[in-house]
C-alpha cells in the first residue's frame, strides 16, 4: 500500500520508470532507431562516395572515405533530374492549391448551408471512400486521355486536385464550430461568404494544414498514376524518373542513391519542420486511401 501511495504521489504518477526500465527502454528505442534510420543513412553515404571508393566491398565503410557531391552532378547529366523535381513540384502545387480551395468551399457548404440535394451529394462523397483508387485508375486514364491530357503534368495533377476524403475532412472540421456562433452571424445578416471567411476559416486552420500537407506528400510520392499517364521521358515526375534511371543505368548505385536523396530530402525537411501536423493528421483519421 505504501508503495502504491508513493507511486501515485510521484510527479510521473503510476509507472514512472525506474532506472532498470529506463535502460531497457532506451536500448529498445535505439535498436528500432537503427532499423528505421540506417537504410536511409546508408543510401546517403553511398550517394557521397567517390568513383574510386568501392561501394560493393564486403565490409564497406559506413562513412564515405572520399566524400564528394559529384554523383549529384552526374545524375543530373544522366537524367534531367532537376526538371523531374520541378515537374513533381508543379503537380504538387496544383494539387495543394486545388484541395485547399475546393475542399474548403465544399466542406463548408456541406457542413453549414442548407440546399436541395445536399444529402445525396454527401452520400456520394462518402461512397467514393470504399473504392480503392486502383479500381478506377484505368477509366480515369481513359477520361484524362479523352480530354487530351495524356502525357501531360496537368493530366497527372487533375484527378487529385480535389480529393473526396479532403472534402469530408473539411466538412467535419466546419461542423466542429459551435452552432450558436454561426446562428448569431446569420441573425446579424451575414452572407454565407462572410460566415465562411470570418467565422469558418479561422476555426479550421488546423485541419486545413493537415489536408494541404498530406496533399503535398501524396502528390510528391505518387508513382502508379504518373507512371500510367506519362510516356515521354521529358515529362516524368521524380518518382517515375527514378524508376527509369534504375531500369536504364542500374550499373552505378552511387547515381541512383543521389537521385533517391534528391526525392527524399525535401520531404524529410518538410516532415521534420511540420511533424506535429502529421501525427494530428493520422490521429484525426486522415487515413490514406
Amino acid at each position, binding site marked *: 500500500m505504501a508503495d502504491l501511495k508513493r507511486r501515485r504521489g510521484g510527479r510521473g504518477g503510476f509507472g514512472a520508470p525506474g532506472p532498470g526500465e529506463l535502460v531497457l527502454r532506451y536500448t529498445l528505442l535505439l535498436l528500432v532507431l537503427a532499423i528505421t534510420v540506417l537504410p536511409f543513412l546508408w543510401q546517403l553515404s553511398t550517394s557521397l562516395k567517390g568513383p574510386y571508393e568501392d561501394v560493393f566491398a564486403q565490409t564497406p565503410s559506413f562513412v564515405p572515405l572520399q566524400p564528394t557531391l559529384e554523383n549529384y552532378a552526374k545524375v543530373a547529366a544522366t537524367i534531367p533530374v532537376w526538371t523531374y523535381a520541378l515537374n513533381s513540384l508543379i503537380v504538387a502545387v496544383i494539387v495543394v492549391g486545388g484541395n485547399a480551395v475546393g475542399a474548403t468551399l465544399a466542406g463548408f457548404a456541406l457542413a453549414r448551408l442548407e440546399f436541395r440535394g445536399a444529402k445525396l451529394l454527401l452520400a456520394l462523397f462518402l461512397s467514393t471512400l470504399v473504392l480503392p483508387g486502383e479500381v478506377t485508375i*484505368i477509366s480515369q486514364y481513359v477520361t484524362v486521355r479523352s480530354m487530351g491530357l495524356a502525357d501531360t503534368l496537368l493530366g497527372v495533377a487533375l484527378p487529385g486536385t480535389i480529393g473526396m476524403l479532403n472534402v469530408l475532412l473539411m466538412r467535419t472540421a466546419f461542423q466542429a464550430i459551435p452552432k450558436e456562433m454561426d446562428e448569431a452571424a446569420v441573425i446579424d445578416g451575414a452572407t454565407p461568404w462572410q460566415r465562411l471567411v470570418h467565422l469558418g476559416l479561422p476555426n479550421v486552420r488546423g485541419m486545413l494544414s493537415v489536408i494541404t500537407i498530406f496533399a503535398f506528400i501524396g502528390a510528391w510520392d505518387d508513382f502508379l498514376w504518373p507512371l500510367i499517364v506519362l510516356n515521354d521521358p521529358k515529362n516524368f515526375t521524380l518518382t517515375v524518373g527514378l524508376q527509369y534511371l534504375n531500369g536504364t543505368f542500374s550499373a552505378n548505385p552511387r547515381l541512383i542513391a543521389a537521385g533517391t536523396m534528391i526525392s527524399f530530402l525535401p520531404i524529410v525537411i518538410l516532415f521534420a519542420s511540420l511533424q506535429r501536423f502529421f501525427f494530428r493528421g493520422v490521429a484525426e483519421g486522415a487515413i490514406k486511401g
Partner: protein
Amino acid sequence: MTAPVLPAQGALRRRITPWLLVAPAALWLFVFNVWPSLNTLVLAFTNAKPLSGGHFTGLDNFGRMLDDTQLVDALLNSIVFMVVCLPVLTLLPLLLAVLVEKKIPGITFFRTAFYTPVVASAVVVALIWSWLLSDRGLINGLAQAMGVLQGPLPFLTDRWLLVFSAITLTVWKGLGYYMIIYLSALGNVRRELHEAAAVDGAGPVRRFWSVTVPGVRNTMLLVSVLVAVSALRVFSELFVLSNGTGGPGGRAMSLVMLIQLYSRGFYGHFGYASALSLLLFVITIGPMLLLARLNRKAA
C-alpha cells in the same frame, strides 16, 4: 441607411450560393469518381484498347481470367502478402506504440524518426532496399563476411524471395504509420486498470495481454483491416524491386501490377484491365465496408 436588397434577389442568392461553393468538388466527384466507376463497369465487357475503340464482347474478359496463369500467380502472391503482413503489422506497431508511449526525454525524436519511412515515397524506399538487397549489396555482403552465406541470396531475382523482400519493406515502411494510430488509442486505455493489475501483481507482459490488448481491441481490428486492404493493393514495392519486370517470368506480380501492365503499350487492353479492376473491387469491398463502419464508430 443602405438600400435594402430586394427580397427576391436575396432569396435567389441564398439558394445559389451553396451550389456555387460545392460546384467544383461536385464536378470532380462526377468526372473523376462517379463516371470512371461506371465506365470501369462498361469497359470490362468490351475489348477496348489504347489504340482502338473496341466493342462489346460479353463475358470474354472474365473467361480470359480463368485461363490466366499470371493472374493465379498474382492472387497467390497477394494471399501470401496478406497472411504474413496481417499478424506482423497488427502486433509489432502496437508493441512499438507501447514503447514510445511513455514520455521520457527524447521521445519526440524517436517517434519522429520511426515515422520517417512513412513519408518517404514507396519508390524511394524500394530503391534503397534494392541496393541493400542486391547481389553485391550490404545485406549479402555482410552475411558473406560473417560466414552466414557462401554466395549471395537472389533476393531480387527469385520469385518467393522477391515477394518476401517486398513484404519486408512493406512492414518496415508501415510500422510508424500504425504505431501512431495505436498511440492515440493507447491514450484512451484507462490508467486505473493498469494500476489495479499492478496492485494484483501482474507484470508488464501480463498487463500488456490483459489490459492493453483488450483496451485497444477495436483499433487492432481497424489496423488489421487497413493492413489487409493495402496488402491487396500493393504495387510500387514489387514493381521497383523487380525493376518493372515482376520477377522471373513475371511470376512475382501483384494484381495492381497486372492492371498497370494492360494499361498501355502494344499489349494494352483497357477491357481486360477493367475486368481485373472489377476483380480488385470485389476482393476489397468487404474489408473496405468494414473499414467505413469502424471509422464511423470511432468518430
